[in-house]
């Protein structure tokens, strides 16, 4: 831990500040405030005040312990001496004056001359040597078991806790309780038998074996070999959930999955349908998106096709041709009119010319046309007429009847 002053230079904190910090760190940790620790007693000293100080040793580690008079009296604790195996319960804190971490003992349990404890260690060692704790033996838990076997006492609060968790997380399941005594002399055989029965029945997909918290002695059945063997031979995967977070039993080591408490065991056994609800919702959204995408893709393709179709449409050619036709018609009409007026002009010229050549003009100048009445033939020679023959003389403004002089 390093504090910096306002210039960014490391500044030291006082020992008491650090001590206080450590103390607070330890005292706000739930596990450290109620923990069972086992080991061998050494440096044991009881003062006239009635307080007892000792060191708990195990392997290469040691822990300072204080057992105050009031706690000793309250629990009528046995006299402690060096060399005995002990399980102590209490809270861990930091003692500023000596600068050390220590355990303030609330109660102790003699493990005899380490009798129970030694049995625990021996059994653990031999089962471990046999390979019963091997990771390769651990079977995976079914992700969504339809039948859950439970081995515990039908009277226990632990059962109610587990059912409450299963109800809220995974009500699709069926629970089969295989009842067992979970403390006392008959408990180990009862638990083993209950496990065997569930295997014989064969419907459970996973089995939870456990009980709620208690003293080491109350939990002891789960440290017995007969229970360990029943767990090991189970064809159904086993979840252990014994006592509190800090309790470790032989059953925990053999089980396929160790949960810290019965409640945690039930939680580990099943999925949560609330997650499934979210999954279903996500799937629904995915379906909607997929069909929307599909439809808008089709719509887009349709629009593109329409556009393409319009581009190559014969309608366009028809329109083009029609325009061309209109153009031609107009040009044809213009040309035609031009030709007509040209012809009219020529006609007028010819008419004028014709007019100038007309015999009527000659008549107007004083000439006359003579026709004989018999056949209206124009007389151009005296040979054509007989004396006394009737004639008509055409002049500019009319006809004059006439007769050839008789001879």
């Amino acid at each position, binding site marked *: 831990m390093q504090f910096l002053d306002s210039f960014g230079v490391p500044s030291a904190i006082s020992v008491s500040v650090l001590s206080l910090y450590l103390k607070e760190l330890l005292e706000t940790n739930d596990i450290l405030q109620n923990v069972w620790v086992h080991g061998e007693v050494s440096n044991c000293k009881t003062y006239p005040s009635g307080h007892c100080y000792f060191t708990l040793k195990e392997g290469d580690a040691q822990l300072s312990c204080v057992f105050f008079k009031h706690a000793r009296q309250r629990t009528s604790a046995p006299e402690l001496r060096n060399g005995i195996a002990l399980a102590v319960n209490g809270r861990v804190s930091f003692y500023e004056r000596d600068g050390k971490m220590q355990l303030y003992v609330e109660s102790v349990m003699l493990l005899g001359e380490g009798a129970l404890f030694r049995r625990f260690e021996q059994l653990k060692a031999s089962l471990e040597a046999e390979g019963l704790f091997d990771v390769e033996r651990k079977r995976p838990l079914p992700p969504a078991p339809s039948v859950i076997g439970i081995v515990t006492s*039908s009277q226990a609060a632990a059962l109610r806790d587990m059912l409450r968790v299963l109800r809220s997380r995974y009500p699709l399941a069926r629970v089969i309780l295989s009842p067992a005594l979970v403390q006392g002399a008959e408990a180990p055989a009862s638990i083993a038998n209950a496990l065997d029965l569930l295997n014989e029945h064969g419907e459970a997909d996973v089995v939870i074996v456990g009980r709620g918290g208690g003293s080491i002695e109350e939990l002891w059945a789960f440290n017995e070999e007969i229970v360990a063997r029943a767990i090991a031979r189970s064809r159904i995967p086993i979840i252990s959930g014994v006592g509190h977070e800090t309790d470790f039993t032989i059953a925990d080591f053999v089980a396929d999955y160790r949960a810290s408490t019965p409640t945690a065991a039930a939680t580990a056994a099943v999925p949560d349908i609330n997650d499934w609800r979210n999954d279903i919702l996500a799937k629904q959204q995915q379906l909607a998106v997929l069909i929307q995408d599909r439809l808008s893709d089709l719509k887009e393709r349709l629009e593109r096709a329409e556009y393409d179709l319009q581009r190559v449409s014969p309608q366009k050619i028809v329109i083009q041709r029609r325009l061309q036709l209109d153009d031609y018609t107009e040009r044809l009409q213009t040309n035609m009119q031009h030709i007509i007026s040209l012809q009219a002009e020529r006609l007028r010229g010819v008419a004028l010319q014709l007019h100038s050549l007309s015999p009527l003009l000659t008549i107007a100048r004083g000439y006359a046309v003579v026709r004989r009445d018999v056949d209206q033939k124009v007389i151009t020679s005296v040979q054509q007429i007989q004396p006394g023959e009737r004639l008509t003389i055409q002049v500019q403004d009319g006809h004059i009847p006439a007769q050839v002089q008789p001879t």
Partner: protein
Amino acid sequence: MKDVKGRKMDTLSFEEAFERLEASITALQDGKMPLDQALQYYQEGMQLAQYCNGLLQKAELSVQQLSVDTGNDTLSVLPLDL
């Protein structure tokens, strides 16, 4: 209840229905599927989702107790009332 690939939907377990829901999505992801078929998959998927939700809604944990009949040494399960 509508048929889903030859089975009445209400005979499906949650897992089966959910699997089919996932299958509808996989099928819909195939962009080459004819539209009427895609719409069918969509509709079926939505119905399956609804069915799954319904199952979760009405699910109730059933609790039984294993009991040994000492007479003929057989195992049976009885409802457990706590």
